[in-house]
C-alpha cells in the first residue's frame, strides 16, 4: 500500500517541483563557485572553500547550504500535507471507507514521508556530485583531518552523508505528520512544522538554554560533516540517530493516538 502512496506523492507536480529546487541548489552553487573562483580558504559556508579542490565537496557544500532551510521546507510541505491534505480534499473519508485502515494509512504516509526525507537529501548529493565532477577537478579527496581518501571512497561517503541527513530529518518529519493529523488545513500544518524548525534552530543558538540543546532535533543536523574526517567520527552521528528515533517514537505515537480517534468530518 505504501508503494501506491509513494507513486501518488512522487507523481505530483508539486513534489517534482520541490525536488527540482533541491537539484538546483548544488547546480547553482557549483556555477557560482566556478564563475567567481570561490571563497578563500576558511571563508564562506562549510565545504564551499573546498569545492574548487575537489568536485565531491560540491555535494557536501550543497547539503550544508540546503540543511537549514530548503530541506526542512520540502519536508514540512510533504509531512504537513500527509493527512491534512487528504482531509482538505475530502479524500480522507473515501480512503477510510475503502477501508484503508486508520493506523495502516498513517503507517503508509509515515513510510513515504520518511522515504521523501532520504530522496530529498539523495537528490542534492547526486546532483552535487554530477555538477562537481563536471565543473571541478576530481581525484583523491583531502579529508577534514588532512589525510587523503580515494575518489570512490569520497563519493561513497557523500552518499552516506545523504542517508544520514535524510535520517536526521525523521524527527521533523514525525512532528509534521503529527501536526498533519490535527487539522484539515494543509498549509497550517506545513507552517507549524516549519515553525518548529525555526524555534528549534533559535533555541539551539541561545547559549542560556544550552541544557536544552542535546534534545533539539536540529542540534546534530550538521553532524554529517564528521563523515569526511579520517577516521570517521561517529559520536555525534550516533547521538543524532538516537535522538531522531526518540522523536519518531514520541510524535509517531501522538499521531497514531490522534489518527485512530479523530472524527473525520471533512
Amino acid at each position, binding site marked *: 500500500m505504501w508503494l501506491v502512496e509513494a507513486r501518488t506523492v512522487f507523481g505530483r507536480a508539486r513534489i517534482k517541483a520541490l525536488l527540482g529546487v533541491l537539484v538546483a541548489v548544488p547546480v547553482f552553487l557549483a556555477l557560482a563557485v566556478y564563475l567567481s573562483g570561490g571563497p578563500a580558504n576558511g571563508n564562506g559556508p562549510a565545504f564551499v572553500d573546498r569545492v574548487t579542490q575537489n568536485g565531491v565537496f560540491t555535494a557536501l557544500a550543497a547539503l550544508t547550504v540546503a540543511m537549514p532551510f530548503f530541506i526542512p521546507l520540502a519536508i514540512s510541505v510533504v509531512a504537513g500535507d500527509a493527512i491534512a491534505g487528504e482531509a482538505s*480534499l475530502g479524500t480522507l473519508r473515501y*480512503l477510510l*471507507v475503502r477501508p484503508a485502515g486508520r493506523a495502516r494509512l498513517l503507517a503508509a504516509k509515515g513510510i513515504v514521508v520518511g522515504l521523501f526525507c532520504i530522496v530529498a537529501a539523495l537528490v542534492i548529493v547526486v546532483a552535487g556530485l554530477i555538477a562537481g565532477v563536471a565543473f571541478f577537478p576530481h581525484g583523491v579527496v583531502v579529508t577534514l583531518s588532512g589525510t587523503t581518501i580515494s575518489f570512490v571512497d569520497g563519493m561513497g561517503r557523500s552518499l552516506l552523508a545523504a542517508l544520514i541527513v535524510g535520517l536526521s530529518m525523521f524527527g521533523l518529519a514525525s512532528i509534521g505528520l503529527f501536526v498533519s493529523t490535527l487539522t484539515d488545513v494543509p498549509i497550517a500544518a506545513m507552517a507549524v512544522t516549519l515553525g518548529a524548525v525555526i524555534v528549534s534552530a533559535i533555541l539551539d543558538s541561545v547559549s542560556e538554554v544550552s541544557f536544552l540543546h542535546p534534545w533539539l532535533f536540529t542540534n546534530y543536523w550538521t553532524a554529517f560533516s564528521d563523515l569526511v574526517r579520517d577516521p570517521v567520527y561517529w559520536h555525534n552521528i550516533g547521538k543524532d540517530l538516537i535522538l531522531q528515533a526518540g522523536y519518531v517514537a514520541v510524535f509517531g505515537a501522538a499521531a497514531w493516538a490522534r489518527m485512530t480517534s479523530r472524527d*473525520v468530518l471533512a
Partner: protein
Amino acid sequence: MAVETHGLAKHFGDLRAVDDIDLAVPAGSTYGFLGPNGSGKTTTIRVLLGLVTPTAGNWSLLGQPMPQRSMSTLPHVGALVEGPAFYPWLSAQDNLARFDAMGPDWRSPTRAKRIAEALERVGLTAAAKKKYRAYSLGMRQRLGLAWALLRPVQLLVLDEPTNGMDPQGTREIRHLIRQLGAEGTTVFLSSHLLSEIEQVCSHVGVMHRGKLLMQGTLADLRASAAPKLRVEADDPVRAAEVLARMGMADVAVQGPQLVGTLDGLRPEDCCRSLVEAGIGVRMLLREQLSLEDAFVALTGEGFNVAG
C-alpha cells in the same frame, strides 16, 4: 438487516446531530433516508461508515458489529458520502485505481477491468483519461458513483447522489439505483428530495432534527397521514356542520368547497348524509394525500427547511 442501529447518537457540544435513532434497513431493500438539510442524515452516514465515533449506541453493517469488523465489512460496502472527493491532478481512472489499491487487497488482477466497467456504467468512458480538475460538477458526481460501484458490493450508501446533476443525469442515476436494487443490492439512499425517494425506494426513514420520526415501507408513510375528503356544495357552511356532526375532523370551508380529514369515515356515508340533509353536492373527492403532505404531517414543517 443490512443496517441496524440501536440508540445511536452523536452530539457536537450541545447540538444533538443524531439523537437516539434505531435504524432497521432490511437486506435487499432500497431505503430512502429522507430529511431536510441539516437533519442529521450525513452525520448518521458518517457514523455508520466508521468516520465518526458515536456518542452513544451501537450499530452493525451486513450483520457485522461495527466498528470492530470494519476492515472485513467495509470492502462489501460502496459509499458516496457528502459529495465526491478525488485528487484533482489525477485522471478519473487513476483516481479510481489509487483508491482501490489503498484497500486491504492492494493487488487486484481485475482492477483495470472493473474501472473500465464502472466508468462505462456511469457514462464516463470518454472522459476516463481526463484530469479530475477538468470535470464538471455532474461528472464529478458520476465519478463518485463509479467509485461506489467499483467493487461488487452488498450495500450501497449513497448520500444525495443526484446533487448538482442535470435532469438527464438525474434520471440516469435513478434508473441505475433501481437497476441495482433489482439486482439485489441493498441501497441506502439519503435525500432531501421526496420525489426522488418516492420514485426509487421501497422503504423510507424520515429524519428531523436528529431524530428518526418514522420508518417503514413507503406505503406505511403514505398511510401515516389520514386521507381527506373535499366537497363542493351549494351551501358549504351547512355541509360543514353536517360532516362535523358525523365526526369529521379539521373541517374547513374554502369558498364553495370544504375539506376535512376522513378519520375513518367512509366517503359514501358522508355523501348520503349530505344528500339526506338536502344539500346539493356538486363534487365529492377522496384525496389520497401526497407523501409530501405525509412528511409535513410528521415534521410539522415543509421541505428544504434547514433544521
